[in-house]
């Protein structure tokens, strides 16, 4: 099997985030691999391990795992992390004209890169912790005309039959869905426990190839991406006024009663 995983580098979700000129100020904060994408990396590794004669990913497994990311140069840090977990190689699309791209542009670029790779499966996280849209996997599936198997809490792949079955987990309950390759999957964070890179993995990752692509290499025109092409327009971004200093009291035996007084005053109880 040829598996691709879409991974994104995001500002550390523990850090304070700010807007600068209508877009996220990415320069000022630490950047990490989107933690929800780690579950996609782990799941891809498990799929390969379950179907490899050596029970390991990498050479000799008969399968390949390629990371695909669109982002600035320093996204290589996030890519190295996923490579050290066990992915084989990576493609990073970096181009100054991509700055400020929205989901439609991002999904277009990722789809064009995926088209060149002859993949059987593309795995994604369910959401990037910065954009939080949860739309890229559906957009990629629509653009490629491939089966959409998203919000998977369980994945079962049958490489002999070229089929994949998932259990979709959403607020409306669970659904079993299946499709033939090629398919686009997204996995929820309950699916597995991502491994920590081993020392051997970290050393090996340093030698794994990362192919850099410019926008021109993807075949997407510069008028289709970037802030100028964005299909929505941020009019303003304001730090939310701090919540009015709340009341804080220490329980001295009547904390519950005080709490109810507050609720009654607010007409909430």
């Amino acid at each position: 099997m040829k598996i691709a995983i879409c991974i994104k580098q995001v500002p550390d979700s523990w850090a304070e985030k700010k807007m600068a000129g209508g877009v996220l100020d990415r320069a000022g904060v630490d950047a990490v691999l989107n933690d929800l994408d780690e579950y996609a990396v782990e799941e891809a590794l498990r799929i390969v391990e379950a179907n490899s004669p050596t029970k390991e990913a990498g050479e000799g497994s008969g399968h390949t795992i390629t990371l695909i990311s669109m982002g600035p140069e320093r996204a290589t840090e996030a890519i190295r992390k996923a490579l050290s977990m066990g992915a084989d190689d990576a493609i990073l699309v970096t181009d100054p004209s991509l700055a400020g791209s929205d989901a439609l542009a991002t999904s277009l670029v990722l789809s064009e890169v995926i088209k060149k790779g002859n993949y059987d499966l593309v795995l994604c996280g369910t959401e990037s912790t910065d954009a939080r849209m949860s739309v890229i996997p559906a957009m990629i599936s629509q653009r490629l005309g491939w089966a959409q198997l998203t919000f998977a809490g369980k994945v079962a792949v049958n490489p002999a039959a070229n089929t994949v079955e998932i259990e979709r987990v959403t607020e409306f309950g669970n659904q079993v869905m299946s499709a033939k390759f090629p398919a686009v999957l997204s996995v929820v964070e309950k699916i597995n426990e991502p491994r920590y890179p081993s020392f051997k993995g970290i050393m090996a990752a340093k030698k794994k190839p990362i192919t850099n692509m410019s926008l021109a290499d993807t075949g997407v025109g510069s008028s289709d991406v970037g802030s100028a092409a964005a299909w929505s327009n941020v009019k303003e971004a304001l730090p939310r006024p701090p919540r009015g200093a709340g009341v804080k009291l220490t329980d001295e035996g009547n904390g519950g009663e005080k709490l109810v007084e507050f609720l009654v005053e607010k007409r909430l109880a």
Partner: protein
Amino acid sequence: MSEVIFLVDHSAGKITKAAGELATYAKSIGDSVAVVFADNAQPIVDQLNTFPVDKVITIAGEFDKYGPAAIADGLAQLLTDRKPAAVLITSTANGKEIAARASVITGSGIITDAVNVDKDLITTQSVFGGSTTVHATVTKGVPIITLRANSIEATGATSSAAVEIFAATISEAAKLAPITSSTPVVKGGRPDLTEASIVVSGGRGTNGDFKPVEALADALGAAVGASRAATDAGWYPHSNQVGQTGKTVSPQLYVAAGISGAIQHRAGMQTSKTIVAINKDPEAPILEIADFAVVGDLFNVLPQATAQIIARKG
């Protein structure tokens, strides 16, 4: 007046509370047009009569079998046909995927997770765990906007909207991943987490004992939520998890008991109108965003509050 189409969420023959909210938003912008994907649409159409709905469009077909991909196809055809001023969809996993695919098909801009949309189609979003408010507009195609449940109070109305039937086809690509079986969520006696106007949540501080949390929830007619620490420990079902990888709630009142307020938890509850926290630790981050905080043991504070509320009701 221009039409604003909204997608009616329904499950097991019942519309969700969010359907009335979307009708209310739609009516504040233009003529509100409900679109219902169902083979047996009449019972659903009847439930829309108590909301401000000017017209109902029903679309029948194999949408239950093919899910969001198929619904997006049908919606895209409807948009091309009617060219409404905007489309409103609830911000759920399904809703956002329908919005995503329809936006690619029709070449329209998309805004997700809005907490408001005004008559000029300017949306409000609360991002970065609630620390920043963004106002935005869609500049291309038919604006496709997904709105969070509970972000507006639905207005009641008595309408008997005309019903039209629209015929849509499902593309081969949308039929590639059929749903072979489905298990709906079992609804307990309590209100649904995303729809409830009050949510009482428990975290690691409950130490596995959710009884005081449930008792307060029941006294307030609230839904019960949980932090990831509590769901991971198996103390409460994953479907009740609030936060970035759980549900996003914005009730009138959110009570956090024994929850520290990690950024991933806050991401799912920070837009609540009023936040109350009970925590032993005076330094817990949740206290910074609480309108009312009691520093104390939840096992004392919650039962006392519950008893007080029951006593007041007499």
